[in-house]
């Protein structure tokens, strides 16, 4: 089978409100940067996959507004209305099919332009659940409570995730929120939906990111040390009211598929760095467990190795939905290509990127990347 590599990537700085830029301008910025960094001219790119949501863009077929800036005029572009890591999966499929040597993958979202509670409220069953005014946050709070009860986790355990994330984000120039917070700072931050505090939830955020995928031959002509995508997995769970929210079965299955493809048997040892799409602190713990990254959660959080999980700070430090999954792959690529600057994990050779979509992570994606 052909292999797929990442040639280059770019991201915006994430901010609460990028009022001076429309979303197509955000996308133009990251696409331009990918072209400049890789030196690949747009005329050589025949295939594009984008990820965005009409509901956030406030526009039906919102992909229309970015087709030109991703260079898709008279070319083949498709938009996934899903997490950005799903766009990467489709990009991989396009290259493995043999029809394209290059595929540009792009994701954007401006949470500032809408009301996240109203938008995420549209994920809920319209007949019985919408009258309850549920949204992503309140559903996550129910999950956090259920998960912590089942696993015997204290509020302080979950708060540690936030402490670590914001500390690590101090080294990430693209992060929206960073700082040296203590557990008591986290637990003293405003309660958004019991038990989730403000510092335990991803802040409202605007931004975009892009990466360029290439066939193995094309990548070898471009660099001596290509970063390959060696495993992918995706899985869909039951609707949130039809499953135990303390379990992450879909993530376990997505990981099983990705590990099998990548030949990984002991993830805790073989994965050197992991970027996880946790929009809420408890989700990071759930993911670490489901991905088999460490046998003892609470122990891990206190350990040095915890730095290898979301060295960027992750979505808690500000990445909007849709963007967050693709950005995890971009951060993993930065680690493997040695471009992660102050947040670099030394010696990382194999990395994991995780993305999620739907209520309480109903759809899960895992991608394994490896530097040659």
């Amino acid at each position, binding site marked *: 089978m052909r292999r797929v590599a990442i040639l280059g990537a770019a991201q915006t700085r994430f901010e609460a409100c990028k009022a001076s830029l429309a979303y197509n301008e955000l996308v133009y910025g990251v696409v331009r940067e990918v072209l400049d960094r890789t030196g690949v001219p747009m005329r050589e790119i025949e295939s594009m996959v984008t990820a965005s949501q009409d509901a956030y863009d406030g526009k039906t077929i919102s992909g229309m507004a970015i087709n030109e800036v991703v260079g898709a005029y008279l070319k083949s572009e498709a938009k996934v209305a899903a997490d950005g890591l799903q766009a990467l999966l489709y990009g*991989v499929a396009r290259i493995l099919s043999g029809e394209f040597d290059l595929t540009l993958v792009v994701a954007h979202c401006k949470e500032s332009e809408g009301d996240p509670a109203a938008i995420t409220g549209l994920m809920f069953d319209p007949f019985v659940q919408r009258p309850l005014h549920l949204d992503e946050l309140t559903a996550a709070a129910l999950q956090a409570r259920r998960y912590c009860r089942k696993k015997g986790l204290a509020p302080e355990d979950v708060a540690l995730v936030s402490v670590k994330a914001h500390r690590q984000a101090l080294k990430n120039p693209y992060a929206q929120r960073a700082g040296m917070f203590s557990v008591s700072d986290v637990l003293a931050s405003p309660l958004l939906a019991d038990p989730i505090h403000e510092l335990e939830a991803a802040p409202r955020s605007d931004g975009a990111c892009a990466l360029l995928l290439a066939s193995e031959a094309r990548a070898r002509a471009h660099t001596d040390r290509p970063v390959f995508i060696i495993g992918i997995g995706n899985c*869909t769970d039951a609707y949130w009211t039809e499953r135990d929210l303390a379990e992450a079965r879909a993530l376990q299955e997505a990981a099983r598929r990705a590990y099998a493809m990548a030949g990984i048997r002991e993830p805790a040892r073989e994965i050197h760095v992991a970027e996880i799409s946790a929009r809420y602190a408890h989700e990071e713990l759930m993911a670490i467990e489901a991905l088999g990254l460490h046998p003892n959660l609470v122990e891990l959080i206190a350990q040095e190795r915890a730095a290898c999980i979301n060295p960027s700070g992750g979505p808690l430090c500000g990445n909007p939905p849709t963007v967050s999954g693709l950005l995890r792959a971009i951060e993993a690529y930065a680690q493997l290509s040695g471009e992660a600057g102050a947040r670099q994990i030394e010696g990382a050779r194999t990395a994991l990127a995780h993305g999620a979509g739907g209520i309480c992570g109903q759809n899960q994606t895992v991608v394994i990347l490896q530097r040659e």
Partner: protein
Amino acid sequence: MPRRVAIIATGQTKHAARRLDVNIAELITEAVTRALQDADLTMRDIDAVLLGNMEPFEGFLFPELWAVEGWGGYMKPSVKFNTGGTVGTTTAIAAYYYVASGIYDTVMAIGFQKQSEGHTQTAITTVGDPIWERSVMAGAIGNFAVMATTYMHESGVTEEQAAKVAVKARRNACLNEYAHLQMPDITVEDVLKSEMLAYPVKRLDMCPQSDGAVAVIFAEESKAQRLAPRPAWIKAVATAHEQQYMGDSPKRLAEMRSLIAASRRAYQAAGITNPRRELDVAEIYEVASFAELAMYENLGFCERGEGGKLIDAGVTELTGELPVNPSGGVLSTNPIGATALIRVAEAALQIMGKAGRRQVEGARTALATGYGGNAWTDILILSREKP
């Protein structure tokens, strides 16, 4: 060299203005069950499911995840696409690439829309740029009226010729048990006398709004040969986009740049030099009667300005040289998230010899198109012969 991929089964719902008997999940189940029965498969045989839907029409975010029980997606890989009118073909083309890539062997593509549960034209109004276009472009009809007048001016096509397309579609639909608008007695007069929506587009020149779903199963070569007596092989796929602003493509229907680019790329990949002679049947995404005539020209079925003559001569009738939309087309059935995938399903049915009363005898090569968004195009060419 990509792996060979074929369509091995299709299933459709009965399409209608209002399917009050089912919810979205149940609507999808109807199509999925028929597709599985068509190939004698169960969901256990399906590796992954790709879905197409325009969720703003029903006011949803991730409607497919709410409806997951309806399509058997539990513990399976899945992803949803959203590209406007093309979304069905976007999903079909993605299914092709996923199988060709070797990631999955068997993929089900699903398109669904329950327009009766939302307000489609309100959502379509937000397609326009909020500053430059939204205040002057309301819904799909005004857009097509502008295109149709431009096209009439450029090609000399008449309202009567467009009306003939509308008549052909609704009569063909009578041979299709799944079609929404079946009008056996419709005449050119009826179309011309129907309510003027926006000159020159009259009510019967336009597609309806429908509730419906479709499922199409794609498989790699060895499975396809084992599971289908006569698979519909994917010979070529192509996509081409247009510029965002209407003002950047002034000729619109008269010169459909994305349709020209995508079709020529697909013809070349499929080794087709004379589409009118080498294609046996076409299922095209004709949103309005005028558009079908323009598409004849831009697809190279005839010379520029000859679209009207083609319908006058009966070339595209079910019994003609190149039947176009024997299913009744979009003018008869339009559940938007499913519409373009229905074109693919109908083209596949023709190749597989399963099109019943609308079967084009001996069809060996079929074209399916999707049209949407900002005048962009998807093309698939299906064949009885392996690529």
